C-alpha cells in the first residue's frame, strides 16, 4: 500500500488540477462553489495520505484545518451569501471559454516548466506536484481576472490559497503549524470581509457586476 502512496498523491494532484480547469469553464455559481468544495476535499485527502505515509502528525492537523475551513465552513457561508444576494444566474466571462481554456493551457505549461528544475530537488515523496500546485495558483489567478462578477473572484482567491497550501504540503510536507494557523486565520478573515463588501457593493450598485467597479480610472 505504501508503494502506491506517491501515485495516489499524484492522482489527487491531477484531480485538483482538473477541478481548477472545471472551475474556469463553469458558468453557474452554485456549481462553482461545489467544485471549490471538492477541491478542498481532494486537498484534505492528499494531506492526510501524506501524513499517514510520512508519519507526521502536523499534517493531520493541517488537513483537519483545511477540512473545517475550506470544505465545511466557507462553502456553507458562500452558499448562504449567494442565496441572500440572489446571485444564481449564469456568469459572464470577459473572454470566451475556449480562449480561456487555451490561455489556461499556456499557463499550465509555463508553471510546469518553471517548477520542473525545482521539483527535482525536493525531498518529499510528492515533490513532483509542485508544478501542479503552481499551475493551480496561476489558473485561479486567471479566473480572478477573467470573471466579471464578485463571487467568482472570491472563489478564485480561495482556490489560489488552496493551490498554495497544496504546494506547501507536497513540497515540504507542510509548513510549521503556527504559520498554517496564521494563514487559515487570514483566509477566514479575508473571506468574511469580502462577504461584507459584497453586500455593500450590492447595496450601492444593485448588482454584483464588477463592471460597475471600474469608474476610478486614470484621468
Amino acid at each position: 500500500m505504501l508503494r502506491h502512496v506517491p501515485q495516489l498523491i499524484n492522482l489527487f494532484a491531477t484531480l485538483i488540477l482538473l477541478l481548477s480547469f472545471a472551475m474556469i469553464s463553469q458558468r453557474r455559481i452554485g456549481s462553482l462553489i461545489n467544485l471549490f468544495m471538492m477541491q478542498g476535499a481532494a486537498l484534505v485527502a492528499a494531506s492526510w495520505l501524506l501524513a499517514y505515509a510520512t508519519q507526521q502528525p502536523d499534517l493531520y492537523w493541517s488537513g483537519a484545518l483545511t477540512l473545517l475551513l475550506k470544505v465545511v465552513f466557507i462553502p456553507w457561508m458562500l452558499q448562504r451569501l449567494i442565496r441572500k444576494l440572489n446571485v444564481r444566474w449564469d456568469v459572464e466571462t470577459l473572454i470566451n471559454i475556449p480562449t480561456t481554456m487555451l490561455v489556461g493551457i499556456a499557463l499550465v505549461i509555463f508553471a510546469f516548466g518553471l517548477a520542473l528544475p525545482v521539483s527535482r530537488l525536493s525531498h518529499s515523496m510528492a515533490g513532483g506536484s509542485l508544478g501542479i500546485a503552481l499551475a493551480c495558483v496561476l489558473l485561479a489567478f486567471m479566473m480572478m481576472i477573467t470573471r466579471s462578477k464578485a463571487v467568482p473572484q472570491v472563489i478564485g482567491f480561495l482556490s489560489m490559497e488552496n493551490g498554495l497550501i497544496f504546494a506547501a504540503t507536497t513540497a515540504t510536507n507542510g509548513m510549521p503549524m503556527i504559520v498554517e494557523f496564521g494563514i487559515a486565520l487570514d483566509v477566514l478573515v479575508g473571506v468574511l470581509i469580502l462577504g461584507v463588501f459584497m453586500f455593500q457593493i450590492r447595496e450601492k450598485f444593485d448588482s454584483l457586476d464588477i463592471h460597475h467597479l471600474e469608474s476610478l480610472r486614470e484621468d
Partner: protein
Amino acid sequence: MSWLGAFSQSLALLTAVLLAPLLTGWVNACRARLQNKKPPSLLQPYRLLHKLFHKDSVMAEHASSLYRSAPYVIFACMLMACAIVPTLSTDLPLSPAADGIALVGLFALARVFMSLAAMDVGTAFGSLGARREMLVGFLAEPALLMVLFCASMITRSTSLTEIVETLAHRDLAIYPSLLLAGVAFTMVSLAENARVPVDNPDTHLELTMIHEALILEYSARHLALLEWAASLKLFVYSGIGLALFFPWGVAEANAPLALVLALPVLVFKLAIGGALMALIETLNAKMRVFRVPEFLGTAFLMAVIGLLVNVLLGVG
C-alpha cells in the same frame, strides 16, 4: 502468420459485426429503463436491419456514384477499424498495418465520405448535418489523438496491441494522466457516436440533428449499412476505451484458452460500459450546437494536460 492468429483475427471481426447491434440495443434498453419506459427488446436492432435489407432502395434522380458507394466505403472503414482494435486478442495479424494514428485516419475517411454523401443530394438538411458533423469531427479528432498519445507515452508505442499488452502486464498502478485521458475519451466518444449531450439519437426534429441529418436521404440496404456502421463505430470506440483503460482479460498470442475466456470478459465489460453510457445520457441534457466546441475543447485540453502531467510527474 499462425493459424491461431488468423483464427483470432477473424473471430474478432465476426464478433464485432455480430455483437455491435446488440450493444446498441443494450444501450437503448438501459436508457429506456432509466427513463422509466418499457425497454425494447435487445434484438430490436437486428430486426431493423433485417427489415431494411428487404426493402427497395429509393434514391434521388441526380444522386452520383459517390452517394451510392458511400455506405459501402463507410461500412468497410468500420470493419477495418474493428480488425485492428484488440478486443478479444492482441494477436491480430492485421495490426502491424495500422496503429492508433491510422485508426483515427480511418474514422476521418468515414466522416469525409459521410459528409460528402449528405451534401451530394443537395437538400438543406444534408448540408446542415454535414457542416455540423465536420465541426464535431474537427475538434474530436485532435482530442482522440491526444488521448491515444497519453497512453502511448506511458507504453512507448502507438500500436494499440502493444499498448494493451504493456498495460495489462504492469502492476496495478494509478496513472493520473490516464485518468485525465479517460475523462477526455468519454467526452470524445459521446460526441463521435452522436450521443447526448452532443446529439440526441432519438430526435425527430431535423434542426437538432447531427447524425440523423446525414442519413436522412438513405433507404433500404444503404440505410441498413449505415446503421450497422454506426453500431460498429460505437463498438470500436468502446473497444478502444477498454483497450486503453481496462486492458485486462484480452488474450495474448498463443493462448487459445485465454481466447475462449476473452469473449465472456468482453461481453461483460461492454455491458457495464453500455450501461454507464446510458446513465450519462440520461443524466445530461443535449447542449446547444454552439456549445459543442467548448465541450470538445475541454476534452482536448484535458488530454493535453494529461500529457503534460505525464511529463511533469515522470511516471504518468
